């Protein structure tokens, strides 16, 4: 099938996706920005852990910080779109089922690829995160150079509620500190409970 007929049918504004993403990220062409993104449903008990961490990080940053903090509960495509235009992204999400609720994993996309998916990157209404990122890369969209994922093992994502279980709630300050340490690019002294892969920061080719 000759698809060139289709592409000529439309005004292919090839640069507009990049425009949208730069605009959404609030970027000018020269600034490199960082995004802290809490992923999860804040009213589904432990699923809100990512949201709680993103909010805690936001309150600790100076008002003029170049770091954006947002929280969403979406699948892969929307997640991919949300991070376009940023230089560096830190995602925080829940991981289920848990071997030890409250345990924190610091991961990269390579780790994610190896272990299949986090809770939110898998949906029949969306592409998985890895698929969405592969697609964005293929299309030459402005993906972050660096994506780091903090995944917290959670206990209850079945009951509606806005209070986390104790072990998961206790993990919030620890993840918050780890994210802040990473943001300030100081020596990362991760709490002992953070399982850290030495190769954990990957760079997109």
């Amino acid at each position: 099938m000759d698809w060139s007929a289709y592409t000529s049918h439309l005004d292919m504004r090839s640069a507009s996706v990049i425009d949208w993403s730069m605009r959404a990220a609030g970027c000018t062409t020269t600034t490199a920005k960082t995004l802290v993104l809490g992923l999860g449903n804040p009213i589904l008990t432990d699923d809100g852990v990512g949201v709680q961490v993103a909010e805690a990080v936001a309150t600790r940053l100076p008002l003029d910080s170049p770091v954006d903090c947002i929280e969403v509960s979406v699948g892969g495509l929307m997640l991919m779109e949300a991070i376009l235009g940023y230089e560096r992204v830190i995602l925080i999400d829940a991981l289920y089922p848990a071997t030890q609720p409250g345990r924190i994993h610091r991961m990269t996309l390579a780790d994610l690829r190896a272990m299949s998916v986090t809770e939110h990157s898998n949906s029949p209404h969306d592409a998985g995160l890895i698929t969405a990122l592969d697609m964005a890369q293929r299309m030459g969209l402005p993906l972050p150079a660096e994506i780091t994922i903090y995944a917290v093992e959670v206990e209850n994502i079945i009951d509606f509620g806005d209070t986390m279980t104790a072990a998961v709630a206790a993990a919030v300050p620890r993840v918050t500190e780890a994210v802040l340490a990473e943001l300030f690019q100081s020596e990362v002294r991760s709490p002992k409970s953070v399982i850290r892969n030495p190769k954990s920061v990957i760079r997109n080719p």
Partner: protein
Amino acid sequence: MKRITIDPITRLEGHGKIEIFLDDAGDVANAYFQVPELRGFERFCVGRPAEEMPRITNRICGVCPEAHHMAATKALDNLFQVEPPVVTKKIREMFYSAFYVTDHTTHFYALGGPDFVVGPDAPPAERNILGVVRKVGVDIGKQVIDTRMRNHHVIKMVGGRSVHPVAGLPGGWSKAISEEERREIEVIANQNIEFALFSLKIFEDIVLGNPEYMELVLSDAYTDRTYSMGMVDAQNRVNFYDGMIRVVDPEGQEFVKYHPRDYAQHIAEHVEPWTYLKFPYLKNVGWKGFVDGKDSGVYFATPLSRLNAADGMATPRAQEAYEKMYETLGGKKINGRYQPVHQRLATHWARLIELLYAAERMMELITDPEITDPNVRAPVTATPTEGIGCVEAPRGTLTHHYQTDERGILTKVNLVVGTTNNYAPMSMSIKKAASALIKRGTVISNGLLNRVEMAFRSYDPCLSCATHSLPGQMPLEVVIYDAERQEVERLSQYTSQCGT
């Protein structure tokens, strides 16, 4: 007995599962589509102020927060007995049209489309949006992402927040549209119309131009003759935001047309021991089991059923596309209206017609001279007791029903969500496809199971709010059991695409 289960990644709970039981001869004896249950949504809401519901319910799920926001906002109009200004209704519907454009676009290119564009028997790793991009080219992929992003931009601008909007108020909308915003949205609406026409052309060329696909679409394996439900305007044309609920019988005669507030007089729920989710059916026809036909109260509520239930589309190009679909699929006109199309795979076509309608409707509304009127709120004075709000969500009719005390504190909450409407017909479609495709001696391949999944995928099911399940996800696994109930096959939909 042999048992087949379509199941998601096993480490997840809260997933949907299709189990297929084979008899001694190796034919399909039964097929069950099971979904999990999340608990305590009503308990979570009771005791909270009703006006928080547009912001609470849009957290139920990451797939259609805008639909919940809108149904909740309309339920508040009704609860506080306040009629929103005309401009407010137009803003809401314009906003809602932008949401429809993103949602239907995603389904066609990322979910339903890959079965046709990449092929129903392609490996699962290819049968996704990345596979579509590989097949049709990077430029079209960019169009898809661009369409999603520019409409999400409208949703954020008009709804006050990205993804989870906040602007809905009883009798109002929290902000008006400025002339500058109006001009920007007009450009976007125009791009949406172009994109919708382009998507329809792709569908027509790929599917209608391919005899093998047409055979699949028209085959008995994917045909169920049930009642059709959809919201219609005063002229019986499709409307997503407001109107009456119309139900037509399998021959296309109007069975009933009722105000959404009267839903409980028309819809009842059947319970089965093997699943938490209930099966809504037409109360005045009755539950006769998982069977189709005029005597069975099973109905469906999808893009296809909405087109079946209406007499046509309210915008010109969508009306042309509508006529083309009914003419092509052999619907005869009786008493001035087309007979329903029952081939469930035609839902993908209907969805694209709705995409075009949403784009055209968005254009009509944003070029309405009244749309920038700043008076977007009506005062609330009545004492609340009970409110019902209803919209067509992309996946079916969505109803929110609240009861409160005199302070507006919630005492009872009931949601009838889009996908729930389709639980019975989906279960029937899965069984029918499985029975037609899995026969004695059939080698059960991944491609074959995908064809079973296609029956279910046409409904674009989202069980995350149907069961109040994990936000925006409902991975799937198929497991097959033999006559001795031994598992013989287990295939996961996402395993390969996720790289495990």
